[in-house]
C-alpha cells in the first residue's frame, strides 16, 4: 500500500541517492515486518530497561531542582541571580538562545531535508523533531523567568485590555514572542502529524487495553486507507513547507534581539545569518549527542547507519565553518568600523577578564570541528560523539561571550562591572537540562523514536535497488 502513495522517492532520486558512495541508509536484508517489529518492540514488548529507569530518575531529580529554583526566583526576585547593572541579561537569556539554537535541527531535518528529498533523514527525523520540541519548551521557559514581574507576562501579547494599550511592536522581544510561539506550534503539529501512522501501528500491535485506547485516540482513527495517505502526504508536505522558513525566521528574530540594540558587540548586521548557522550547528551537534547513545542502547545500528552519522557530521562541519566565518567577521567589523567601542569589545573579548571563555569558544567551535574533515573521525561514533558534545559546549560559550562580554564593559567605563552567575543561575540551567531529558526519556519509552512508516518506504526502495 505504501507504494501506491509514495510521494517523494522518485526512482531517479533514489538512484542518485544510492549511486553515491558511502554505506546505505538502511542495512540490507530488512523486510517491512522486521523494521516494524524492531522499532515498535522498543515501545511495546521490550519493556523498561534498568538503564531507562536510572536516566529517567536522574532527569526527574533535576526537574525538581528546576522547580525549587523557579519557586525561589518568583518568591524573591531576579536578585537571586548574578544579573546586575550593566549586565542586565546573564544566564537567563543565554540559555534561552542556546536552547532555541538546539531546537533547530529537528525542523531542519524533517522539513527542509524532506523538501530536498534527502531520504537519509527518515530514520533520524522523528526524535530530532521530538528533541526540537523539548528544546523549544526549555527555551520558552527563560523569556518568562527572566521577567522582573512574571505575573504580568501577558502584557507581551496583543489582546483587548482595559488600559487601551498594545505591546510595543518595535521591540524585538515582541517579535520573539510571536516567532517562538509560532515555531513551537508548527513543529508540534508537524511532529504529531508525522506520528499518526505509527501511532496507528502501535495501536494495532499493542497488547494492553489501555495502550490501545490511548494510542487509538492519538491515532485519530487512522486506517491507512488510500484517502488517508493522500490527505496525510498533502498535510505533511504543507506543514513541511510552512515549517521550512521558520527554521530561518526564529533564530533570525533571536538574532535581532541583539542586532537591533546599540550595545557594542551586539549592534552587528551579521547576527541573523550567523545565529541561524550557529543554531543548525548546535542542533545537529545535539542530535548526534543523543542519536549515538540511543543507537547503541537500542541496537538501531541498522537504521541509524554510518551514513547518517557522516551526513550529520558534514552538516556540522559546514555550519561550523559558517560560524567561524562569523567570528572572523566580528573581529573584522570591530577593526574596520574604526569605532572605539566596537574595537574595545573585540580587544576585551580577546584579552579582557572573560578571555578564557572566548578562547575556549574558539577551540570548541572553530578548531575542534576541523577534525571532521577526516572521514575516519566522521564515521567513528565515539569521536563524533565527543566532538558533538564539544560543539554544544562551544555554542553555550559563544552566547556567554556575546551577552556578557558585550554588556559588562559597554560605553561608560564608570559603570563597568563583572558578572558572576550564582548557584541559582546554574540550578535553573541544569534544571532545564533535566526537563529536556525527562521529556526525552518519556518519548523514547512511549513513542517510536524512528518513523516506522517512512522506514518501510526505505525498505521498499532498497528492495527496488536489489531487484534492479
Amino acid at each position, binding site marked *: 500500500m505504501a507504494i501506491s502513495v509514495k510521494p517523494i522517492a522518485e526512482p531517479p532520486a533514489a538512484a542518485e541517492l544510492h549511486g553515491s558512495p558511502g554505506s546505505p541508509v538502511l542495512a540490507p536484508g530488512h523486510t517491512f515486518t522486521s523494521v516494524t517489529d524492531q522499532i515498535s518492540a522498543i515501545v511495546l514488548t521490550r519493556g523498561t530497561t534498568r538503564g531507562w529507569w536510572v536516566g529517567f530518575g536522574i532527569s526527574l531529580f533535576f526537574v525538581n531542582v528546576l522547580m525549587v529554583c523557579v519557586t525561589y526566583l518568583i518568591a524573591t526576585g531576579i536578585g537571586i541571580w548574578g544579573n546586575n547593572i550593566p549586565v542586565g541579561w546573564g544566564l537567563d537569556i543565554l540559555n534561552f538562545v542556546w536552547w532555541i539554537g538546539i531546537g533547530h535541527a529537528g525542523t531542519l531535518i524533517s522539513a527542509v531535508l524532506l523538501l530536498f528529498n534527502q531520504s537519509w533523514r527518515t530514520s533520524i527525523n522523528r526524535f530530532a523533531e521530538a528533541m526540537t520540541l523539548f528544546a523549544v519548551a526549555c527555551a520558552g521557559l527563560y523569556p518568562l523567568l527572566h521577567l522582573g514581574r512574571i505575573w504580568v507576562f501577558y502584557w507581551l501579547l496583543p*489582546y*483587548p*485590555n*482595559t*488600559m*487601551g*494599550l498594545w505591546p510595543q511592536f518595535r521591540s524585538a522581544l515582541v517579535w520573539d514572542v510571536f516567532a517562538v510561539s509560532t515555531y513551537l506550534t508548527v513543529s508540534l503539529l508537524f511532529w504529531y502529524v508525522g506520528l499518526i501512522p505509527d501511532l496507528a501501528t502501535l*495501536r*494495532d500491535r499493542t497488547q494492553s*487495553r489501555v495502550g*490501545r*485506547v490511548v494510542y*487509538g*485516540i492519538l491515532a*485519530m*482513527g487512522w486506517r491507512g486507507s488510500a484517502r488517508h495517505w493522500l490527505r496525510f502526504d498533502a498535510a505533511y508536505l504543507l506543514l513541511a513547507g510552512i515549517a521550512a522558513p521558520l527554521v530561518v525566521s526564529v533564530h533570525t528574530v533571536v538574532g535581532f534581539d541583539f542586532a537591533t540594540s546599540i550595545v557594542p558587540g551586539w549592534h552587528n548586521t551579521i547576527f541573523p545569518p550567523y545565529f541561524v548557522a550557529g543554531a543548525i550547528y548546535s542542533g545537529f551537534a545535539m542530535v548526534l549527542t543523543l542519536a549515538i547513545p540511543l543507537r547503541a542502547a537500542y541496537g538501531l545500528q541498522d537504521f541509524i547507519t554510518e551514513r547518517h552519522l557522516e551526513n550529520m557530521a558534514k552538516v556540522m562541519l559546514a555550519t561550523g565553518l559558517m560560524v567561524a566565518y562569523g567570528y572572523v567577521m566580528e573581529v573584522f567589523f570591530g577593526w574596520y568600523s574604526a569605532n572605539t567601542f566596537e574595537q574595545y569589545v573585540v580587544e576585551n573579548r580577546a584579552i579582557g577578564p572573560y578571555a578564557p571563555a572566548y578562547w575556549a569558544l574558539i577551540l570548541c567551535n572553530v578548531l575542534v570541528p576541523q577534525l571532521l574533515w577526516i572521514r575516519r573521525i566522521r564515521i567513528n561514533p565515539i569521536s563524533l560523539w565527543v566532538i558533538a558534545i564539544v560543539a554544544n559546549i562551544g555554542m553555550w560559550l559563544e552566547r556567554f561571550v556575546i551577552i556578557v562580554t558585550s554588556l559588562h564593559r559597554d560605553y561608560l567605563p564608570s559603570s563597568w562591572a563583572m558578572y558572576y552567575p550564582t548557584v541559582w543561575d546554574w540550578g535553573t540551567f541544569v534544571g532545564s537540562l533535566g526537563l529536556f531529558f525527562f521529556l526525552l526519556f518519556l518519548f523514547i519509552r512511549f513513542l517510536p523514536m524512528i518513523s516506522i512508516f517512512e522506514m518501510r518506504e526505505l525498505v521498499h526502495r532498497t528492495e527496488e535497488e536489489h531487484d534492479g
Partner: protein
Amino acid sequence: MPQIFHPSMNTISRASIFGAVFILAGVGWLLWLLYRSSYYTQVGVVRPQPVEFSHEHHVGGLGIDCRYCHTSVESSSFAGIPPTQICMQCHSQIWADSPKLEAVRASFRTGQSIPWTRVHDLPDYVYFDHSIHISKGVGCIACHGRVDNMPLMWRVETLHMQWCVDCHRDPAPHLRPRDMVFSMSDWPEPTPTVASSAKIANGKLDLVKIRNIASGTNCSVCHR
C-alpha cells in the same frame, strides 16, 4: 480484533477538535466580560457608609454646592472629604439630635474621624488632579454622574485607563462653561455668557480652543 472505539467516536472526535477552538474563545470572552463587569469595576454598586449621607437630599433636594463640602476641589489634586466640622455647621442646629447623625456628633466629640468608604478609588500609581479638570471645565457629572440622584454613592464609570484616555484624546464632549461645571443638569448651548468670544465648531462652543486645552496623553501626565 475487537473494536476499541464505538463508531460514535468519529463524531465525538470531530466535535472535540472544533469544540476546542470555541472553548478557548469562550474563556477569553468570559475574562473580557469579567474585567468589565460591575463585579470588578464596582460600577453601580452602592458602597455602605458609616453615616447614611445622601447626596440626593443634600445636592438634589437642598441644592448645596459641591464646593461647600468638597472645599479643595478647585485648588488641589484632592477634592477634599468634608471634616466633621462642616457637617456640624448645619447639624448642630438641624436634626441636632437625630439618631442617624450620632456617628457625626460622636466624631465631633471624640475627635475621631468618620471612616468613610472610598467610592472613587484610583490605584496609588495614578495621579489625578481635580483642580485642573475643574478649571478646564470638565463637569463633576462627567466622572461622578448624577450624584443628585444618589442616596448613597456609587460609581458610574469604570475608571479604567481606557476610559480616562478616551476623554483625554477627545475632551470636547465633556467640557462645560465655567458656570455649569458644578451643575448636575445638562447645559443648553451656546450659552450667551461665552458666546461672544466663543469660537463655534460644528454649531457647538469649541471650548477646547477657547481654553487652549491640550489634555496630554503622555504617560507622565498620570504616572510618575
